[in-house]
């Protein structure tokens, strides 16, 4: 392959690499700035800088400042990074695997499964014995959502795999059928739910980082980080798949292995992200798009950039979510879609306009 490149193409390729590297640095800086914003902006007047200065000079922080910084903003920022990066990378992997820019992490049934798990936990949770409720109470919904996402993904993967070969097309179609099925089962539980459960459910589906705790960071963190690392190693394979499965196989890529790992990584990252934050749309589908428009389709840099940009965008969305109606809070799913979609549309239209000229 490399040998057939002529001089201009080689120049072009080097330019691309340089551009991608510049994007890495730029996005990493952007993520850093987002972290500072996320730690510094919030409903209380706790000034991050004054707190930081006093902390360095050895002064004690007030109790409220300590709680706001260590127990609220820091875990929330970390969770935002994990969830944003996890969703964006999963989106990039799924778009690569399905060779379809419309794919998002939900395409392998993760969201449908997680949603069903959460609904069941919310509605049936109230019928559990009291001692069990008080011991697993806050973790019931996340655990059920995570299990639900895995069960649906495994069923889908098994359905689409025959003789050790996974058909991506079957997976796509079976995914639609299974989403309808889980939707119907969810409907039964929605019917059985009371007003309050219904309201809890709506809030869950709109997503929020407001319930961020250290235990959520610690339990979801390793899963999402491992899944992102696994995804990042799939770049070469996904590049090969972009040319079609047969071509990829001729290039010596273990196609089946790539598929299996891609589904596994997506289920792990998205399942864990949805379990701790509820349904957050938009990030998974749009972040890889934006990056492809600016730095090209090479999955190597794309996957890393997706993680950086996804994390940064989600942090900004979260800052907006907690500032707009402060001291109350908007569900973050509303913010990502409301602020993100017009920007995305604008970029798309501007680009099309430029190409037509």
């Amino acid at each position: 392959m490399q040998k057939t490149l002529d001089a201009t193409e080689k120049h072009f390729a080097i330019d691309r690499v340089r551009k991608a590297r510049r994007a890495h640095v730029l996005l990493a800086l952007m993520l850093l700035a987002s972290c500072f914003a996320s730690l510094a902006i919030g409903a209380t007047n706790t000034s991050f800088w004054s707190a930081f200065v006093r902390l360095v000079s050895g002064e004690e922080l007030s109790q409220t400042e300590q709680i706001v910084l260590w127990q609220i903003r820091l875990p929330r920022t970390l969770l935002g990074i994990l969830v944003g990066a996890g969703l964006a990378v999963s989106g990039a992997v799924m778009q690569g695997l399905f060779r379809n820019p419309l794919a998002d992490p939900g395409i392998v049934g993760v969201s449908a499964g997680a949603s069903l798990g959460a609904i069941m936990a919310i509605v049936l949770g109230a019928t559990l014995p009291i001692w069990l409720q008080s011991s697993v109470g806050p973790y019931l919904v996340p655990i059920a959502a995570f299990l639900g996402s895995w069960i649906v993904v495994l069923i889908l993967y098994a359905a689409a795999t025959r003789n050790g070969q996974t058909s991506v097309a079957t997976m796509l179609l079976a995914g639609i059928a299974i989403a309808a099925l889980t939707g119907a089962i969810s409907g039964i539980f929605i019917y059985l739910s009371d007003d309050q459960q219904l309201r809890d459910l709506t809030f869950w589906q709109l997503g929020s980082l407001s319930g961020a705790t250290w235990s959520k960071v610690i339990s979801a963190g390793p899963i999402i980080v491992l899944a992102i690392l696994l995804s990042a190693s799939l770049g070469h394979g996904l590049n090969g798949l972009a040319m079609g499965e047969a071509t990829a196989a001729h290039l010596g890529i273990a196609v089946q292995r790539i598929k299996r790992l891609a589904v596994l990584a997506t289920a792990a990252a998205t399942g864990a992200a949805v379990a701790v934050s509820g349904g957050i749309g938009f990030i998974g589908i749009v972040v890889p798009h934006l990056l492809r428009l600016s730095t090209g389709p090479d999955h190597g840099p794309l996957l890393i950039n997706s993680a950086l940009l996804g994390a940064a965008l989600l942090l900004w969305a979260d800052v907006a979510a907690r500032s707009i109606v402060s001291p109350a809070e908007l569900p973050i799913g509303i913010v990502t879609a409301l602020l993100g979609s017009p920007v995305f549309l604008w970029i798309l239209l501007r680009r099309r306009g430029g190409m037509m000229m």
Partner: protein
Amino acid sequence: MFRTRRNLDIAISEAYFEEAQRRFARLIFLSLWALLFLWIALANPVYAKDKPKRILSIGGAVTEIVYALKEEHRLVARDTTSTFPPQANELPDVGYMRALSPEGVLSVAPDLILAIEGAGPPETIDVLKSSSASIVTIPSIDTEQGIIDIISIVGEALGVPEKASDLARKVSEDFQTTDEQVSKLGDVERKKVLFVLSAQGGRILAAGSDTSADAIIKMAGGINVVQEFDGYKHLSDESVASAAPDVVLMMDRRGNHSISDEVLLSMPALQATPAAQTNSVIRMNGLLLLGFGPRTAEAVSKLNTKLYGP
């Protein structure tokens, strides 16, 4: 010379040692006292602080009680469901009671949080428990005795038990008056009431048993026609028709949510019912009707008057 010098050294160091020992003992003694004082100051809020000054009230009924106790000057914020009295709307709103954000709550710097049962999510409550604010949970109730109980809980928490018992007395007097009003009905045939939460899209969302609507209808001397299920559910047209309610009870809503009596009663489900024939639709303010707070006796009395006449 050498030996004496050495002995002297030893003597000096022994003296120092004894002195240090004494000092150490004194230090231990003093720090024990200090610890004791600290413990008393921290463990007993009575010594540490007086009445809470910055109160956050979560839950419509809770906020109403704070206002009824005339302690609203200490309120710093409320939740979205606290909309009565109208002045409450001017307070900062920390969000829906079941989706509170910990930082939003801390930003109004409350020293006391009065939270209705079910306020959450649990993660937020956990964080708030580690803050300096104390949290008092108010049970969610739908009986007369329940209202008296939560008034006294709120009164205790605010440090105004006398005012609370005055209010409780007034509330139970109100209830006595309404009880007399209801018992005056004697053996008049009780009206069958259908509580309609919404009639959106021609489907009737009705209150079954174990709802606040069911409780208030019973208190006012009516019969809730829907006893087949708990909570609020959609009823089929046929079951509404066969339940044959005498009266339709609805919440009074402003804006385009409301549906006119003519439209409501001409719905296929209601057309053939006694309620449609006698044109009986009662509309009452939702928080007054279902809020279960200090005004509930008033709600019972009003509903009773609307059902059976003065």
